[in-house]
């Protein structure tokens, strides 16, 4: 997205608010409103990718060692990954007060 949504004037919007730039949700940091973070205990992780499949924000990326790591810019803290992980390797921790 060339600029943030609050910078647009009404006459700068495409007809019907069509978004012409595919994949621009990348610039929308859903992690902004997170109240809980997923914390991974690697000892229990069997690298099955269930967390990666279930994450509604596609926050998980596989690292070079095969672990799935949530990108906290996009993780909104819903806890689905922790609930779905078959080995209980993920738990949710409350964010610190800023």
């Amino acid at each position, binding site marked *: 997205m060339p600029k943030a*949504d609050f910078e*647009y*004037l*009404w006459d700068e*919007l495409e007809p*019907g*608010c069509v*978004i012409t730039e595919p994949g621009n949700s990348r610039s929308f940091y859903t992690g902004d409103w997170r109240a809980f973070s997923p914390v991974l205990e690697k000892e229990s992780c069997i690298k099955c990718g269930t967390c990666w499949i279930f994450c509604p924000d596609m926050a998980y990326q596989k690292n070079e060692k095969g672990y799935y790591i949530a990108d906290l810019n996009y993780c909104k803290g819903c806890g689905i990954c922790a609930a779905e992980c078959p080995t209980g390797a993920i738990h949710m921790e409350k964010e610190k007060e800023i």
Partner: protein
Amino acid sequence: MRNHQGMEVSFAAAEAVRLCNVDVVAAYPITPQTHIVERLSKYVADGKMDAEFVPVESEHSALSLCIGSSAVGARSFTCTSSQGLALMNEIVYLVPALRLPIVMILANRSLSGPLSIWNDHSDVMSVRDTGWIQLFAENGQEVFDHVMIAYKIAENENVLLPVIINMDGFILSHMFEPIELTGQEAVNTYLPSYRPRFILHPDRPVTMGAYTMPTLFTEAKKAQEEALLASYPYILQAWKDWGTLCGRVYHPVETYYTEGAETLFVTMGSIGETAGEAVRLLREQGQKAGLVKLRLWRPFPLEDFLREIGSAQRLIVIDRALSPGGPGGGPVAGEIRAALYNRENRPQVFNFIAGLGGREVTVGSFQEMFVSSVSGKASGYQIFGVRG
């Protein structure tokens, strides 16, 4: 020589849709719209129309489907009435917001309850603020012509908005009238194929219907309203071009005997013809009566309206729907009163809610309204002809 053919107005409407080379028809049958849809399905089944006819399970699906087909660039048509429009309501708002040039014929019928299949304007008034361009036809020829005109307006790259053509249920839909059909070549010249600005296509991905935050919603609505207001000159242009092609010229506000008129009726839809006859007879009796007919309801042609009412002292506004519990009578009169409020020398506005649920409104009815308004007996608004 002019070539008129006697036919049911619904069939003339279907013929116009066929002539427009519509790609997708999605509709659910509902009285009194049924004959239009039946005829279209037959055209498609008989190979007379190269379109997809989708017999959907509800009106909600009909318009949802049209959104999908219009979004991929197909010329799309739907048609409904009353309860069907009510069931469609959620989707009606989406179409102008997405700026999709869908055309819908609304065979006007009262909304239940009590259950009624007969004509009034309660259905269209329920979608007044959805952002569609809304036109009223007065007779079968106007219905036929306005299918072409509606696509011409809707698909104009400077407009890209959906259009509702209002035709009174039964009074028009089931009437047999002489219709002058336009030839296919003429229609093709008038209405070239639709060139959408954006379409859903994997080669050039775009997103339609995305979520907006409070930071953008206001701007999106402002843009939508500006688009509707800006459609006005293109609506005039579409009428002008049609006039050049067929010789039938349309205006946002039509007039009859307005010159020197002290009392003007204001009507929308087929009732205008009856009112016209009443005005003609009143003039014969030496009464200074006239008639102003709103063909364009949205965007509201305020300047044309003010110009046409001139210096008349009285307006008798006919509403075909109630606004229960409202402050100012029916929806049309309420708007007209609001529009006149800040003007000096504004006329008195009398409001009659007439023709609810198919109740007959005759030439005599208009004469009665005239007498009670001119004599000062009528007040703010009243339901005309109600017993008791």
